């Protein structure tokens, strides 16, 4: 894209936009009629916002809060049976209710969208370039095929696809997730739209790729001058990126305002809880996270008053009388007025226009502002008892798990009848670590780094291809069947996806009792133990007879934890236990895990990609890259002084939920994608993306390229890194 074309289009746009809002959504409501006698689902109930040119609005909310549905409604992408009311104006023109043909002319030209999952977002049977060219051609049929093709190549180049001319002919499956998301952004930018709606554009991506994509979105905003609506559940992503924030809950905006107002002077208990529930990577001693009890209400059966009241720690009887309006702080009606009006006032209505000042839908917002309450003041934060091990040095504690030079190589085979080996996937390639009693060791890294393979190798309790695994001092290579079965009592696992890791046809009681029965516990003992566990993980006794489908994600994960604890293991392996959960639910599970560890003296092997959660929960951390550990050490040192360039980049890539700090930070953005584990680079496997490598002198680079660095101590203490030029 040449600069003068941008300038030309920009000036063309400014004439009719001036400072008028580009997109104006007023009192938007979306209802999905219930089929077969099911109640209607009120997915969005009165959303209003405006965005101006070049402005970025963040819409934040947990799953089911209606944030995606409201933007899909603006795009005219909802299924026909959805009932949409209210108004959506684009440059002052009403677009709600336009027929599909008229709406199609707007979509992609004036208003465009970037979706969450780039893996399924592109049609698999057309080339990437053709799909991009289609976006150009559809709005300008006069463009020649060659012209559209040239523009597509230009766009691919702009979004940072290397060798764009050549990659034009690639099919989507030949691109990585990050590259596909770049293509999606190119598609959204293709016709220089005035509004780009980004629906969780980085949720499905790894942090280093997320940093690349966020950079790219900044470029897109600069190049097109478009207004951006950024939808996300990640409070970190929006902090440094947006100008204003709209917080949604149960289909309604509950708080809106400038980004600093929301982050530092939040006046809605829900927003306050949400911010308090986020584990912070930048805080050394955060204490327990703020859990919000309960789960979001069902959108087909909402309580009469404030939808957050059932979960709110400071709810009053008046909260249940009528739904509070979104009003400026201090202008909420008093409790007497609400009682006088009674419940007959019905559902509240928003005051329509977006004034740009902070507005809150909470009758106690004025009080919160006056008293200067924070999340810690209004939410009961659980006391997490000190672990009894905390004063025993780790060297003196018994060893729970030791992994020495472990490898897991998968052969790549070719041929149907006569198979021959054509290569090797180095999934796990020689790693060493140990874990002590009462300690949490976290394995972190991006997808494909081998952290889950490591877990599976350990859990298998088999003889590894090379190296050794010993659990509680017993080498797994020498175990017989019966020994292995007995050893499983001592190590149990909690899986990532609470939806699919519980048998849907078993009751909670049977699920938790299964390991006990397998290991031959007497019936009476089993029953006693199951109820004990149900209580331990914070579920109620009456839950025992229900099926997993009746529970929310957080509750299911608690069931999974109860099952893992049934046999009183000493080592609990946690495979991304909270990554599928919403922030407010995640906080409760993280707190539970910490509490259980302190009470039962468990050792955790915690696998995660979320470095904020790791910082919060782990004592030690091992960073993995392409099947190897590149840095290991106690959490405080690694986070404070990362020695390996990859760790530095990883930590730098994570956005902080703190707008001022986030704006002041400079991120290290790594180039490109993770290399294929079937063909790792020679020498140091990280050198192809290393930000330090390019600054080195020629002989130093030679060393990186030819000599594989070993994990060596960097700070004299526990910290060690695999880098020739580690920070010491």
């Amino acid at each position, binding site marked *: 894209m040449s600069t003068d074309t941008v300038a030309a289009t920009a000036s063309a746009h400014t004439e009719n936009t001036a400072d008028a809002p580009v997109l104006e959504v007023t009192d938007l409501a979306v209802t999905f009629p219930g089929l077969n006698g099911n109640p209607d689902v009120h997915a969005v109930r009165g959303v209003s916002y405006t965005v101006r040119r070049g402005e970025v609005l963040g819409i934040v909310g947990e799953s089911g809060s209606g944030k995606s549905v409201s933007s899909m409604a603006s795009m005219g992408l909802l299924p026909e049976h959805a009932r949409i009311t209210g108004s959506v104006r684009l440059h002052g023109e009403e677009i709600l209710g336009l027929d599909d043909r008229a709406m199609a002319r707007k*979509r992609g030209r004036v208003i*465009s969208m970037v979706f969450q999952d780039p893996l399924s977002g592109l049609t698999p*049977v*057309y080339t990437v370039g053709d799909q991009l060219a*289609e976006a150009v051609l559809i709005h300008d049929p006069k463009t020649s095929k060659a012209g559209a093709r040239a523009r597509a190549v230009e766009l691919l180049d702009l979004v940072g696809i290397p060798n764009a001319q050549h990659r034009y002919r690639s*099919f989507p499956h030949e691109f990585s997730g990050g590259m596909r998301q770049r293509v999606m952004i190119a598609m959204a930018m293709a016709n220089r739209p005035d509004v780009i709606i980004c629906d969780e554009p980085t949720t499905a991506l790894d942090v280093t790729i997320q940093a690349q994509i966020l950079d790219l979105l900044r470029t897109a905003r600069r190049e097109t001058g478009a207004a951006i609506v950024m939808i996300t559940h990640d409070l970190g992503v929006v902090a440094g990126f947006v100008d204003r924030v709209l917080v949604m809950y149960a289909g309604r905006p509950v708080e809106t305002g400038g980004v600093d107002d929301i982050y530092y002077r939040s006046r809605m208990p829900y927003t306050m809880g949400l911010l308090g529930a986020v584990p912070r990577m930048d805080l050394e001693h955060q204490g327990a996270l703020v859990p919000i009890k309960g789960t979001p209400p069902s959108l087909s059966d909402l309580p009469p008053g404030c939808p957050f009241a059932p979960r709110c720690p400071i709810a009053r009887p008046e909260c249940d009388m009528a739904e509070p309006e979104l009003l400026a702080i201090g202008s909420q009606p008093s409790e007497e007025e609400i009682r006088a009006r009674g419940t007959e006032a019905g559902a509240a209505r928003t005051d329509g226009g977006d004034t740009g000042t902070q507005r809150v839908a909470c009758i106690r917002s004025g009080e919160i502002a006056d008293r200067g309450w924070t999340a810690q003041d209004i939410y009961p934060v659980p006391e997490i008892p000190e672990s009894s091990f905390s004063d025993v040095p780790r060297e003196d504690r018994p060893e729970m798990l030791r992994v020495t030079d472990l490898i897991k190589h998968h052969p790549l085979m070719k041929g149907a009848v006569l198979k021959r080996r054509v290569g090797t996937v180095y999934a796990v390639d020689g790693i060493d670590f140990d874990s002590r009693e009462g300690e949490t060791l976290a394995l972190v890294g991006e997808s494909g780094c081998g952290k889950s393979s490591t877990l599976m190798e350990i859990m298998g309790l088999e003889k590894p291809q090379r190296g050794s695994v010993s659990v509680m001092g017993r080498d797994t290579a020498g175990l017989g069947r019966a020994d292995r079965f007995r050893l499983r009592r001592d190590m149990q696992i909690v899986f990532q996806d609470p939806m699919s890791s519980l048998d849907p046809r078993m009751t909670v009681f049977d699920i938790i009792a299964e390991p006990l029965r397998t290991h031959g516990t007497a019936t009476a003992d089993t029953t006693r133990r199951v109820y004990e566990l149900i209580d331990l993980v914070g579920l109620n006794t009456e839950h025992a007879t229900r099926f997993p489908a009746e529970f929310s994600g957080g509750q299911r994960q608690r069931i999974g934890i109860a099952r893992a604890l049934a046999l009183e293991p000493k080592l609990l392996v946690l495979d991304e236990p909270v990554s599928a959960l919403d922030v407010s639910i995640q906080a409760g599970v993280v707190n539970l895990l910490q509490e259980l560890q302190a009470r039962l003296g468990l050792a955790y092997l915690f696998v995660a990609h979320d470095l904020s959660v790791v910082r919060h929960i782990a004592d030690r951390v091992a960073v993995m890259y392409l099947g190897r550990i590149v840095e290991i050490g106690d959490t405080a040192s690694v986070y404070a002084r990362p020695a390996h360039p990859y760790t530095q980049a990883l930590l730098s890539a994570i956005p902080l939920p703190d707008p001022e700090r986030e704006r002041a930070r400079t991120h290290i953005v790594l180039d490109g994608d993770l290399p294929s584990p079937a063909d790792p680079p020679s020498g140091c496997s990280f050198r192809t993306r290393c930000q330090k490598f390019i600054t080195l002198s020629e002989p130093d680079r030679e060393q990186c390229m030819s000599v594989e660095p070993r994990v060596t101590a960097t700070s004299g203490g526990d910290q060690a890194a695999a880098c020739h030029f580690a920070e010491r």
Partner: protein
Amino acid sequence: MGKFLARRLLNYVVLIFLATSFAYLLAATNLYPRGYFEQMQPPPSPEAVNSQLDALNLNDQTPLAQRYATWIGGVLTGDFGRTIQGGDVASQMWMKAGVTLRLITVATILGSALGIAVGAYAAVRQYRRFDKAATAVSFFVLSVPTVVIAIVVQVLAVTVNDGLGSQFLIYSGEYSAGFDGTWWELLGNRIHHAILPTFVLAIALFASFARYQRNMMLDVLGSDFVRTAMAKGLTRRRALFKHALRTALIPTITYFTFTFGALVSGATFTEKIYGWHGMGAWLIDSIAKQDVHVVAAVSWFMAITIMAASFLSDILYAWLDPRVRV
């Protein structure tokens, strides 16, 4: 890719050889050609029967291995032996295959095209009136055996003809015996004869294709890429046609090749009932006549068509779906 296909082809050749050999051995051990000659009127002498059987390589007193060796030697040079009446199997086989191909080519194209269109549209209108009607019709057709459909259509044709008092619908034979005229009139006559059996075959195919395509289409309808296409500025109709249907057609096209391959010798009932002397009808007749060589030849032909169809579907799949290209 070429290497992969070459290896596939080699596999198919082995499979065809095995299938044909088993079919021959099964037919040679279970059919009783001697009985066919013995029940002739007047009964021929045992010597005459033996010499007849020897001439045809069908004598059950010759060891099976020897008969098989003679037969397979012939097959390798393109000679499929003689029919029990002494005719050449190979030349008759090509004639019968021609008859069948004429019948099923039109029927499969018609049936699958209609099925795909109805199935895809039904998916778009899921649970609406059109979808419910299409579902009801296809399940009804699927639950009725083809033989019943063929006979019912024939009975209806008779009723229509009676009502009109003329031979409006023809339900027997491939062409009118002794009919003479210009080339165009001959063609017209053949088409006239082909209408009803083609319809019967097409209607049965339509039902399965409609169900299959509906499911395939439903799989892709909610896909993110259809939404992306609409977000680019395509209308819903265009996004469905260009992005959803194109993707959902891939499995159906391979299904089509298999159906076609299987039908070459699988349209038996329709051929028998409508008096078409095609492959299927020939197989049934030859079993009744204890004709070992014809049974083996038809089996060989079935194996060839099925393998060819599967080979074709491999190629088509790779051509249509870039994800499986290697």
